[in-house]
């Protein structure tokens, strides 16, 4: 279980997040929405242990995220940043294998895992191809495969649907929903409300409209954060 308490973040005296608390449980597909600048990315970066909050704590299974070893953390969660890209023209197997960099498995095991995830996502036909030969939708699938290969409990994605064709968006959302059903927690930042409503279990709105400080509830309150629930 992922718990976060009183997360506060300020950049150069500008408060971005103020006293945000909540918890994510495995098996849920959660969307985080909000206007530009509302602190969505900052929040999930903090939750993923990539950034230290100004105040507050994040716990994975009752252990402070900053006390977890980098290796363990890499197994526990993966993170797909917005505008994922690959600076070099790598083979897609190599890219996906990057998700297993910290793992001590043998080459054959890693190879098998790559093969499995490729067939899971229907990407087997891209084996042996370089990333720049793929379309942006196909690339997004490859980056998703990279995040999933380590079989993490928590998957954080930052706007991974943007710039994708509708069909691809649906494909990815279906896959993520299936993952959540298998007991993973998927936390996705998205602007696409329709997709979120269709696939997600809950939607969190971090709105900066009136104030940056609180999580607003639009459709009723659950705990003090959840705003929409199917």
């Amino acid at each position, binding site marked *: 279980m992922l718990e976060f308490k009183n997360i506060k973040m300020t950049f150069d005296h500008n408060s971005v997040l103020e006293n945000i608390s909540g918890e994510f449980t495995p098996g849920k597909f959660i969307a985080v929405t909000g206007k530009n600048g509302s602190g969505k990315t900052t929040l999930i970066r903090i939750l993923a242990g*990539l950034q230290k909050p100004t105040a507050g704590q994040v716990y994975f299974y009752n252990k402070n995220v900053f006390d977890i070893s980098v290796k363990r953390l890499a197994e526990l969660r993966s993170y797909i940043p917005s505008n994922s*890209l690959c*600076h*070099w*023209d*790598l*083979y897609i197997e190599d890219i996906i294998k990057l998700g297993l960099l*910290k793992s001590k498995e043998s080459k054959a095991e890693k190879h098998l895992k790559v093969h499995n995830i490729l067939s899971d996502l229907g990407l087997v036909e891209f084996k*042996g191809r370089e990333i720049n030969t793929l379309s942006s939708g196909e690339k997004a699938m490859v980056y998703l495969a990279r995040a999933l290969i380590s079989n993490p409990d928590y998957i954080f994605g930052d706007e991974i649907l943007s710039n994708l064709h509708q069909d691809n968006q649906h494909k990815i959302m279906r896959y993520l929903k299936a993952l959540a059903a298998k007991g993973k927690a998927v936390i996705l930042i998205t602007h696409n409300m329709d997709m979120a409503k269709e696939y997600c279990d809950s939607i969190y709105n971090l709105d900066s409209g009136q104030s940056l400080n609180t999580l607003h509830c639009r459709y009723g309150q659950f705990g003090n954060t959840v705003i929409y629930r199917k």
Partner: protein
Amino acid sequence: MQKNKYQKSIFILFSMMFVCFIGSLLIGKVNIFPSLFDSKSNEMAFIILSEIRLPRTLLALLVGASLGLSGAILQGFLRNPLAESGIVGISSGAALGSVLCISLGVSAHFSFLIPLFGMAGATITAGFLYIILKKYFNVYTVILVGIAINSLASSLTSVILNISKNPYSALEIIFWLLGSLEGRTMDHVILCLPFIIVGWGILWHTRQGLDALSLGEETAQSLGYSVKNTYQKIIVGVALCIGASVAVSGIIGFVGLVVPHILRLWVGQKPSNLLVPSMLGGGIIVLSSDIITRLPLWDTELKLGVVTSLIGAPFFIHLIFKYRKKYAGI
């Protein structure tokens, strides 16, 4: 399929290096072939081989491999194909130290003072870089601080050249800066070898971090590779192997920039796959350039750094035009 390509390229590069190695022992101002099999004069041929040609051959390989490796590492780290060891300012720092030693005139009494001063220069530069980047770290700062330190060290070198009263010590400094392996001995190899090996070891440790960085800093961080930590290792590793290389050979340009480029077209772009080929490739280029300086065709001693740049620059321009679309995409 890719695996085979990698192993094949290593094998070919290694064979090329071996050919250069043998060539370097056999080619020089003096033709030793006749005396090699003549019992009367083969002692001389043997001493020329072991005392003159072997040390500079080994140094050329060590220096070339260090330049190639640091180039590949820095290009991988900065994800910028224009990076090379010069960009972090460490080679200029090493050069500054050595030039200072020459201009003070203390080098004459103990010839190892020049490399020792060079290593001191590299250490001070790296320390400076390390402290600054520990406080203010991001990749742009890395590049800008490196460039600034580089030009600061070069301008201090110019100041020393400028104020040197004696035109002959200025000449000696300029010749030293052009890079050369002439007259180096086994003692030079022994002096720089430990630093270079340790430097290689540290740089080798960053290879996974470099691969992770191909997906950007955030992804690398989420995979458990701290960008800052990787860079600190790179600074220490480059300071050790490039500092020691520049200290014994002077500045040898263009190798660190060109070698990873050429090899990327051949072994693919994966940063960790480029390291060993770049070491071999750097060794090959520096060694073959050193052989060119020794050909009995010229009356003067051609300087090594001049030859590497002279070969490297036009080749680089050729590459840019040939693959300009590919580069534009990066």
